[in-house]
C-alpha cells in the first residue's frame, strides 16, 4: 500500500477545514468498507490521506427531537441497536442493523458510512427510504429519495460531510433481508415497506437502493395483486456472484407479499 497520511481532527470544524484543504482525501469512520478498499488498492483515484471522523462527538448519539429521531452519522450499529428510543420509535432500522455482519461489524459500521458508500446492497438504505429519512450534512439537508444518484454515487458535494440522519417516529415499517445465511451475509434482496404512506424500498435489485414507484402507486390504490405485478417492472436485477436476476425477481415478489401481509395483520 502506498503511503497514506492519517488525519485525526479534534472537532467538526477542523474536520471540514482539513477535508477542504487536503487533496485526494477520503473520510474514514468505522472502516468496514474503506479499510478493505484502501488495503486492496481499489480506491480510484488513490487517496493521499484519510480523515478520521470516527470519534467526533458531534457525529455521535441517538436523540429524539419532538417527532423526529436523530442519529449521529458516526454512531455504531451496536449503539443504535442498544438505544431504547431507536427500538421503540424506528424498530425497522434496529431490525436492519441487527442483520449487518456480526458483532465485529456492528461495533464499527455507521449510518453515515452506509449512506456515503451508497452500495445498492446497503442494508439500512431501503429502511431509510421507507421512513423518508433526511440526510443532514454540514451545510444542508438532503431528502433520502434525492440522495442516490447512480451506482455508488450520491448527491454529496466533494467536500461535504454527513453529520446525522433524521427519521420520523411512529411510522409502521416492515423489514426483511434475504441472504445466504442469517449472519455475515451480503443481501440478495433487502426490502422495507410502509403502508401509510405507501413506500416500497428495495436493495440489491438495481444500481441504486430503489423506491418501487409503480408498485407504490398500486399500493396507494389498495390493489395488492397490482403491487406484486408492478414491482417486477420497477426493479432491474442482474446476475452476479451472489444471485441471479430471475431469483431476485421471484424473491422480491415473495418478500413483498409477506411484508404486506405482516402490515395488514398490524
Amino acid at each position, binding site marked *: 500500500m502506498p503511503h497514506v497520511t492519517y488525519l485525526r481532527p479534534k472537532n467538526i470544524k477542523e474536520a471540514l477545514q482539513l477535508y477542504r484543504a487536503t487533496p485526494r482525501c477520503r473520510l474514514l469512520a468505522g472502516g468496514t468498507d474503506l479499510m478493505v478498499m484502501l488495503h486492496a488498492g481499489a480506491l480510484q483515484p488513490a487517496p493521499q490521506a484519510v480523515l478520521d471522523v470516527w470519534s467526533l462527538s458531534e457525529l455521535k448519539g441517538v436523540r429524539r427531537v419532538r417527532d423526529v429521531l436523530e442519529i449521529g452519522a458516526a454512531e455504531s450499529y451496536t449503539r443504535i441497536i442498544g438505544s431504547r428510543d431507536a427500538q421503540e420509535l424506528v424498530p425497522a432500522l434496529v431490525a436492519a442493523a441487527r442483520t449487518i455482519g456480526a*458483532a465485529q461489524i456492528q461495533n464499527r459500521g455507521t449510518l453515515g458510512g452506509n449512506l456515503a458508500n451508497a452500495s445498492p446492497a446497503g442494508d439500512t438504505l431501503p429502511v431509510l427510504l421507507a421512513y423518508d429519512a433526511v440526510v443532514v450534512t454540514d451545510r444542508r439537508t438532503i431528502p433520502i429519495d434525492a440522495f442516490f444518484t447512480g451506482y455508488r454515487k450520491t448527491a454529496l458535494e466533494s467536500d461535504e460531510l454527513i453529520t446525522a440522519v433524521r427519521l420520523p417516529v411512529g411510522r409502521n415499517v416492515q423489514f426483511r433481508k434475504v441472504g445466504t445465511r442469517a449472519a455475515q451475509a451480503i443481501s440478495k434482496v433487502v426490502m422495507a415497506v410502509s403502508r401509510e404512506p405507501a413506500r416500497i424500498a428495495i436493495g440489491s435489485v438495481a444500481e441504486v437502493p430503489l423506491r418501487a414507484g409503480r408498485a407504490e402507486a398500486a399500493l396507494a390504490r389498495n390493489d395488492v395483486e397490482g403491487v406484486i405485478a408492478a414491482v417486477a417492472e420497477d426493479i432491474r436485477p442482474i446476475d452476479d456472484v451472489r444471485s441471479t436476476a430471475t431469483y431476485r425477481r421471484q424473491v422480491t415478489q415473495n418478500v413483498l407479499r409477506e411484508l404486506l401481509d405482516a402490515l395488514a395483520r398490524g
Partner: protein
Amino acid sequence: MRFTLNGREVSFEGSGARRLLDVLREDLGKTGTKEGCGEGECGACSVLIDGEVVDSCLVAVGQVEGCKVITVEGLAEGGRLTPLQQSFIDHGAAQCGICTPGMLLAAHVLLERARRPSADEVREALAGNLCRCTGYTKIIEAVLSCRT
C-alpha cells in the same frame, strides 16, 4: 501515537492509516492475531478495543490512540490460561487453530456481559468468526461450559 496493548503502554511511529492487524503482527510481535480474509468477513483478526470485539483488519492504527487493545496474548495472566481457554482445549474446540484467537476474544466478551448465555446467544456472538474445521459444535460446547 500511544495506546495500551494487553495492559502495557506501547508507542507506534508510522502512518496511522496502516491496519491495526499489520502493526500488531509486524511491529509489535503479537502474531496471535491472524489474518484470514482481510475483508471483515471471517473474524480471524478479532481483537478487543475498549472492551468491544472488532476486526483489526478494518481498523486504522491511528484510530486506537489512547484506547485499550487486547489480543489473544492478553487473555492469560501470568502464564495461566483462562477457564475459557482451558475449556477450548478440554473440548477439542480447536483444530487448525487459525480461528481460535478470534473465537476466544468474541466468546470472552460474551461471557463478560451475559453470565449464562443460551446456545443461540453463543452462536450469535460467534457469528462473525468463521471456522472451517470443527463444524462449531465443540466451540459452542466449550463456551457453554464456562457459564457461571
